[in-house]
């Protein structure tokens, strides 16, 4: 619970999934709270989520980690539901609950029997404005978060490396600061910091309600109006004008050595455009590009060349996540085979990309990927939580419901020329950070 999502840079994100639209309803309450309802009557279950349009990239300088610490503190109680009550009530109703923080959003959710939706809304609405915090709550929870940072980051050379690479990638955007925060800043966060952040950002006009499951949209609207409707909007809420990233003009490199590294690798991330409302074409081309270069194991460009033909890599992948409020990253990843140096692995990776740019898109492979895009729309309907999450992420990252629904057809319409044009623009080392993860510095000289 109260968990932070860390997208590992090495994980291949599959943003191909998309949605059928027939079962999706949307509305907006008078106080500005947006709502999305996804109907599915297979099981008598509902997922109830509230997403706030605030994440770690909205934090003030020196206060890194406050969005995530507040997420933890949101479970400390209100006047109506005292300490521990929220979780106890969810559990007594057979429900599970959680929360997570990322660069662009903070979200809270419960999964319960469909007839308990009203109770969940009652409690979630109550803590949108009614949080009570003691100094002791904050002190103890700060220790918990520091232990969380130990578990996720300080005990993991991969995570430390990722943190350093992000910091190198983003000179100005707060995407360069870890979601969980820098240790020395987290250690100094106070009750006052948490409450200031809370009062500034937690309001219905900065929130998105997502309800998915065995529900009737008209009924959901009625219940939402009852519980969320009376909460006044925050009239002082400012637009999300955050520090933006200047153009990158010079290549950056991060050489990271740690004795705990078992598997050295090369990873390159290029600064890349994100999906924007009404303008997702380039992001769609980049999504397909990632699939072609490193999506499906042995049949991708990197898999074929580096793993099958040259046998110089154990694993390869390419990744891109376009759901982001500001500029994002496109990445390539190669784990060299034993005896192959990082330098040679990087060289082979560059050669494979250059060859792809010269020869162009394999049309059969693109057709297979498009088949999977279509299938993904069907498979996606199996996971209600996944669907709910996709809408929540999109709506807190500058996209609209319509953008989410148009995404599959935009992916389908991507042409080989679109892909090559996007690749030529983005895959430029002057806009990239190349990282080597090593056991010890001597590997850098090889």
């Amino acid at each position, binding site marked *: *619970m109260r*968990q932070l999502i860390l997208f590992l840079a090495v994980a291949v994100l599959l943003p191909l999934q998309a949605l059928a639209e027939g079962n999706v309803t949307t509305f907006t309450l008078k106080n500005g709270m947006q709502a999305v309802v996804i109907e599915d009557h*297979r*099981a*008598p*279950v509902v997922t109830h989520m509230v997403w706030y349009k605030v994440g770690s990239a909205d934090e003030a300088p020196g206060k890194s980690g406050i969005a995530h610490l507040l997420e933890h503190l949101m*479970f400390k109680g209100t006047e109506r539901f005292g300490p*521990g009550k929220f*979780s*106890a009530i969810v*559990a*007594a*109703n*057979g*429900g*599970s609950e*959680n929360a997570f923080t990322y660069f662009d959003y903070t979200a809270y959710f419960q999964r*319960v*029997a469909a007839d308990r939706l009203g109770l969940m809304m009652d409690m979630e609405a109550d803590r949108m404005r009614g949080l009570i915090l003691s100094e002791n709550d904050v002190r*103890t*929870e700060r*220790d*918990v*978060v*520091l*232990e969380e940072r*130990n*578990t996720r980051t*300080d*005990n993991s050379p991969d995570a430390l490396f990722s943190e350093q690479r992000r910091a190198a990638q983003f000179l100005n955007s707060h995407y360069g600061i870890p979601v969980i925060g820098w240790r020395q800043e987290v250690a100094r966060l106070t009750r006052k910091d948490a409450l200031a952040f809370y009062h500034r950002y937690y309001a219905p006009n900065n929130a998105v309600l997502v309800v998915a499951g065995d529900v009737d949209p008209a009924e959901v609207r009625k219940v939402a109006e009852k519980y969320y409707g009376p909460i006044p909007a925050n009239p002082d809420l400012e637009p999300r004008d955050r520090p933006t990233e200047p153009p990158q003009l010079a290549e950056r490199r991060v050489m990271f050595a740690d*004795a*705990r*590294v*078992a*598997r050295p690798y090369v990873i390159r991330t290029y600064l890349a455009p994100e999906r924007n409302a009404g303008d997702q074409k380039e992001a769609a081309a980049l999504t397909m590009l990632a699939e072609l270069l490193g999506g*499906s*194991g*042995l*049949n991708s460009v990197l898999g*074929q060349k580096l*793993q*099958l033909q040259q*046998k110089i890599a*154990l*694993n390869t992948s390419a990744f891109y996540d376009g759901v982001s409020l500001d500029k994002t990253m496109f990445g390539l990843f190669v*784990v060299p*085979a*034993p005896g192959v140096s990082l330098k040679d692995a990087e060289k082979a990776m560059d050669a494979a990309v250059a060859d792809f740019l010269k020869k162009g898109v394999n049309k059969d492979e693109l057709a*297979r*990927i498009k*088949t*999977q895009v*279509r*299938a*993904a729309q*069907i498979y996606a*309907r*199996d*996971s*209600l939580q996944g669907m709910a999450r996709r809408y929540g992420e999109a709506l807190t990252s500058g996209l609209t419901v319509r953008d989410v629904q148009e995404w599959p057809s935009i992916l389908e319409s991507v042409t080989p020329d679109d892909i090559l044009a996007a690749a030529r623009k983005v895959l430029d080392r002057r806009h990239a950070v190349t990282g080597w993860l090593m056991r010890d510095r001597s590997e850098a000289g090889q």
Partner: protein
Amino acid sequence: MKRILTLGLVLLALALPAQARMKIQQITSPGGVKAWLVEEHSIPFTSLEIRFRGGTSLDRPGKRGAVYMMAGLLEEGAGDMDAQAFQRARDALAASLGFDANADAVTISARFLSENRDRAVDLLRLAINKPRFDDRAIKRVRAQILSIIAQDRKSPRAIANRAFDKLAFGPDHPYGSSGTGTEQSVRALSRADVVQAWKDALARDRLVVAAVGDITPEQLGLILDRLFDGLPATGRRMPPRAKLVLTPGVTVIDYPSPQSVAVFGEAGIRRDDPDFFAAYVMNRIFGAGGFTSRLTREVREKRGLTYGVYTWLAHYSLADMLQGSVSSSNDRIAEALKVIRDQWRKMATGKVSQDELDAAKKYLTGAYPLRFDGNTRIASILAGMQLDGMPASYIDTRNDRINAVTLKDVERVAKRLMKPDNLRIVVVGQPVGLKSTD
């Protein structure tokens, strides 16, 4: 999400729904293969979960890692298709086929669209019945497995789990070592060893199947015969039940990292024990209850000593344990473990309040039907049930059995199970104030 980091090979206790709308059909194919089926025609795809009992515990002497490697090779070429051709065919059908092995089973997870059902089944049939085990593929997969082994040797959690397993089951039972194998054993595996592992592990006498989705009993029956008719009737005999040789004490393994990872445990309880449900409720109160468990309250909420502390009843096919884990900074882990031990002692008195008992029962019975959402999720649960030898009818009585648990039952089972002086604790890190006791 609540991070329960279990041993990779443990099958956690499953529970089943009371008023779920689904209906489980138990079918037998014309050729005699049995399966559980839930028809769900609202989305045009099917999830198929296949298990072969035994898994990596069927490795022959000196061949540790053979079954694991074999499972990894099932998607690396079959029939007249090499690895690339096979994966191309799979992608063209937009099917997903996953192959894996744990200490109790080889697992196959398939998902295919209705419009591609026959072609996807043909592909899966080839993978199961006619795997090629090409030398090139063996070489590639071996290198990947060696990389996994190297990573496990540098992961505090994996180091702790391996050490604990060895202390719990000794070097002679398969449960006492990793099914992935060692660097030495994996390097020595030949193609013949892999073929032998395939014959040992994939046989019809150990087969479990669950299907959920857009498919009728008749269609499934025909598929079952096509999928498995080429397999041998019997495989290698199962190892004996594992004897728990765990002794009390503390094992500290030095590892340079800021946070220590601890795993701990003692003897558990069998799922068919008359007091199993009492133990299950007790564990919910003690350490499995998310934010409402005693351990989370004492170790995390009150003292801020950890991000996560959990206990669980671990049920392997051939052994049972009560286990737990916690991670804390090197300078705080001793305190965290002291609080856990104190709570263990308190639980051992068997004293639980009526409120705690009611809250645990309400959660367990209420959460039960909620698990059954999503075809893939349901299929996986139904396969797990069969692997654990549970009848489908268990679903109808499970909540009643939870509700029947009394304060007295919990007291009796707590006194029987919770033995703080029997605990073995394995700590990986550089803990301050903790030393190995043996």
